[in-house]
């Protein structure tokens, strides 16, 4: 019940165990949508603690709680090339005992005070989230301090979490969406770049990770120089400053990150097919995107909303779902990372009409690349994107997540106020240019399920890839 992504009921499992590369990738997309001048957001402070720890901070006493989101530079892209999944395993084991507390005592201390503490690893960052009732802040921050600075990584605990991650990977091995997501990233980035490797690792790699790998990762990544923090809640600046010093002050000053090369995603069109006996065929499609500081970024963001964004207005939704009834869900989003960028879309469609669905998507993408949006579509999209700012930030955790994302994206602290002007400045010419850049070359398409009807596969398609 606590976050946006837990809403679709699923079998509970340790959070990390069910993550897949693509799910994480898609989660990343959601945050930057959140840009909104709420009343609280209008009061963002740039806090510098006495010890020099910086945070973007909103003081708000409406509800007696504090939400903190923070990140270190260096996520799964710091995993050893032959051992994907290290950072993900660290994220799931940091709360399994630290300082003078073993795993059981640590979890007891959290639950006794209803403190919510978790870590996740994404491609570029190692992220943490801490939520507490305001009266438990000393204990909450202290538990976080020990987790970050003196994790135990006891072998029995690490093995238990490993078994959960492996169980999730086994599940994923017959899950068409997970298979499609992995294959897509492999197709886009190959296996010589960290972005092509799964954040959660593989059945084979996770089993080989040992405690030395975890320790090596934390010693290189958890440092003050790349730390970014956002806090929202019922605490004053002076108290927060001293909490931040106590929590993060003991970390090393400098991280020691392995440099990651910039990479362009593979050129479309390409197609891969993974046979799987499922009633619904899953199609993941995409291609090279626009990096966050590309001059066409906002134009691309707007025109992407028109093609495949939320709501009844998107062209893909109208053509694939509403007119033809081919799918329940069809959407496309931009995904930007520190060293590359993608657009990625997804749909699930009935097996006997998968070819028709793929063709319909191809056609809409081509049409948008060639003709761009209409002036009316552009106006409506801008109107949506401006108005939605406010809605995205209506609780403390969402606001903190957005404030962290702006920092990771290297945006100014007043970005929330500037954003609508940037949206407004997008012209029809800009949108057309961005559409050509994004979709002019066609799509990288991954199909998982029964083989689509032969007639629907264009002659240019590469032969079906072997299942993996």
């Amino acid at each position, binding site marked *: 019940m606590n976050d946006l992504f837990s809403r679709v009921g699923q079998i509970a499992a340790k959070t990390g165990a069910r993550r897949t590369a693509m799910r994480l990738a898609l989660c990343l997309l959601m945050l930057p949508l959140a840009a909104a001048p709420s009343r609280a957001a209008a009061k963002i402070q740039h806090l510098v603690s006495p010890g020099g720890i910086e945070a973007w901070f909103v003081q708000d006493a409406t509800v007696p709680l504090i939400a903190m989101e923070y990140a270190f530079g260096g996520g799964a892209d710091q995993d050893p090339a032959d051992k994907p999944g290290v950072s993900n395993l660290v994220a799931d084991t940091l709360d399994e005992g630290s300082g003078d507390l073993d795993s059981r005592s640590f*979890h007891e201390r959290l639950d006794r005070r209803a403190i919510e503490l978790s870590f996740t690893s994404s491609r570029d960052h190692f992220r943490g989230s801490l939520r507490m009732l305001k009266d438990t802040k000393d204990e909450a921050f202290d538990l976080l301090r020990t987790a970050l600075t003196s994790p135990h990584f006891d072998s029995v605990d690490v093995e238990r979490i490993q078994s959960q991650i492996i169980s999730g990977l086994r599940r994923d091995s017959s899950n068409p969406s997970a298979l499609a997501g992995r294959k897509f990233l492999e197709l886009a980035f190959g296996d010589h770049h960290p972005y092509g490797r799964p954040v959660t690792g593989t059945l084979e790699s996770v089993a080989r990770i040992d405690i030395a790998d975890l320790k090596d990762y934390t010693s290189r990544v958890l440092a003050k120089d790349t730390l970014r923090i956002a806090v929202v809640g019922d605490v004053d600046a002076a108290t927060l400053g001293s909490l931040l010093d106590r929590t993060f002050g003991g970390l090393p000053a400098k991280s020691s990150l392995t440099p990651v090369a910039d990479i362009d995603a593979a050129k479309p069109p390409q197609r891969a097919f993974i046979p799987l006996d499922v009633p619904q065929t899953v199609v993941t499609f995409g291609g090279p995107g626009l990096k966050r500081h590309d001059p066409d970024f906002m134009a691309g963001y707007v025109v992407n909303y028109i093609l495949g964004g939320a709501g009844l*207005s998107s062209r893909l939704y109208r053509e694939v779902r509403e007119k033809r009834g081919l799918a*329940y869900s069809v959407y496309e989003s931009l995904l930007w990372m520190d060293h590359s960028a993608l657009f990625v879309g997804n749909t699930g469609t009935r097996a006997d009409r998968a070819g028709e669905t793929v063709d319909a998507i191809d056609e809409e993408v081509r049409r948008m690349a060639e003709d761009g949006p209409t002036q009316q579509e552009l106006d409506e999209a801008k109107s949506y994107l401006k108005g*939605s700012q406010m*809605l995205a930030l209506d609780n403390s955790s969402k606001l903190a997540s957005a404030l962290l994302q702006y920092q990771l994206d290297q945006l100014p602290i007043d970005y929330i106020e500037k954003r609508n002007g940037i949206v407004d400045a997008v012209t029809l010419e800009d949108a057309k240019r961005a559409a050509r850049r994004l979709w002019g070359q066609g799509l990288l398409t991954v199909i998982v399920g029964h083989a689509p009807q032969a007639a629907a596969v264009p002659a240019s398609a590469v032969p079906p890839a072997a299942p993996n």
Partner: protein
Amino acid sequence: MPSTRFGYPLFAMLAAVTIWIGGAAAQTTITSDPPASFTLGNGLQVVVIPDHRTPVVTEMVWYKVGSADETAGKSGLAHFLEHLMFKGTSKHPAGEFSKTVLRVGGNENAFTSTDYTGYFQRVPREQLATMMEFEADRMTGLILKDENVLPERDVVLEEYNMRVANNPDARLTEQIMAALYLNHPYGRPVIGWHQEIEKLDRDDALAFYRRFYAPNNAILVIAGDVDAKDIRPMAEQTFGKVAPQPSIPAERLRPQEPVPIAPRTVTLSDPRAEQPNMRRYYLVPSATTAAAGESAALDVLAQLMGGGSNSYLYRALVVDRPLAVNAGAAYQSTALDPTQFMISAAPRPGVEFPQIEQVIDDVIAEVVNNPIRAEDLERVKTQLIAEAIYAQDSQETLARWYGGALTTGLSIEDIRSWPDRIKAVTAAQVRDAAQKWLVKTRSVTGYLVKDNAPKREEKRS
């Protein structure tokens, strides 16, 4: 989320181990005001939950009708109608409502459960009157044409494929629920049985709509940056003009369960079940049907046995002995009729189900036979009560708690006093709840196993 336009309709019944705390909103230690509530002349109940942090408002209309109110043979109809409610009225043709929501940056969605169907929009506060006009209009003004209805039925079938057919765990849930309920319609999936969904048509949908959609069968929840006193005139001018439907019975009577007398098991073999899984569902009272204090005791019991890393089941099966990769429990308290208490475990490779079940039975016996440690009871109660405080951070969560509780027979006071009821739960009540309700004859145990039979020849045309 962009991926689910008509969101999470089935989450109440498909969610196996997601902790769903019944009604819970305000803790006594919080000085939040109770929501304002009044009823219009046509029977529409209105609930207003102020939250002035952001100039945003959430409008939710909850109808007291869900899949358990469908006629046998028409399973999935409540949910199908939910989809069709976006197809326009004589006043506002298809797409106009949704376009209006998007133009102002808002979002909208809808959901269907066994007992209720809900529709909501989140918009800037100054748009509320417009939203109320649209929502009141489609309460009785829906126009359906085959050209809209038939493609939408295909969409629902794809939703079925995505949520159920492609997901072995969801298929197991269907089988367990069908076996658990011998007589009550909770045994039918909210989304419906495939062969019945594919036959639903325009006439079915319209008949269901006319039968159940009316102000006297609905609750309007407004949460956000509003003043309660402004809402009444706005509601009068919009929803107040909709005529009531006198033939809707005040009481929702469904066929009830006989006293269960035999433990049941179901085993689903699926070639895609790479991680085996077992779940046991017990038939237990809901917050609405339970005796005083009993539902709160079940909330505490579920958290104690299966809520997180400190829970008895997780410790026994995952930490102390490496038998399972995961274990948990949950109690689905929000329901008009008797509901489910669920236990789940995913065995490690090489571990057989009987080993797991023995430990589960031992954990239950331990709760029944030995006093619960005061410190465990305290920890669990703190966590549950904190949920009510955390919920105050989200107007949408609050609106959902109130809507879900009020459409399943609870009152605003029931919701507000939930933290107090949790606080009052004693160790003896938790023990009694376990002893009375976690009885094998009341349960269905479901097993998901990998089907290793040779794959049938793939049909090619």
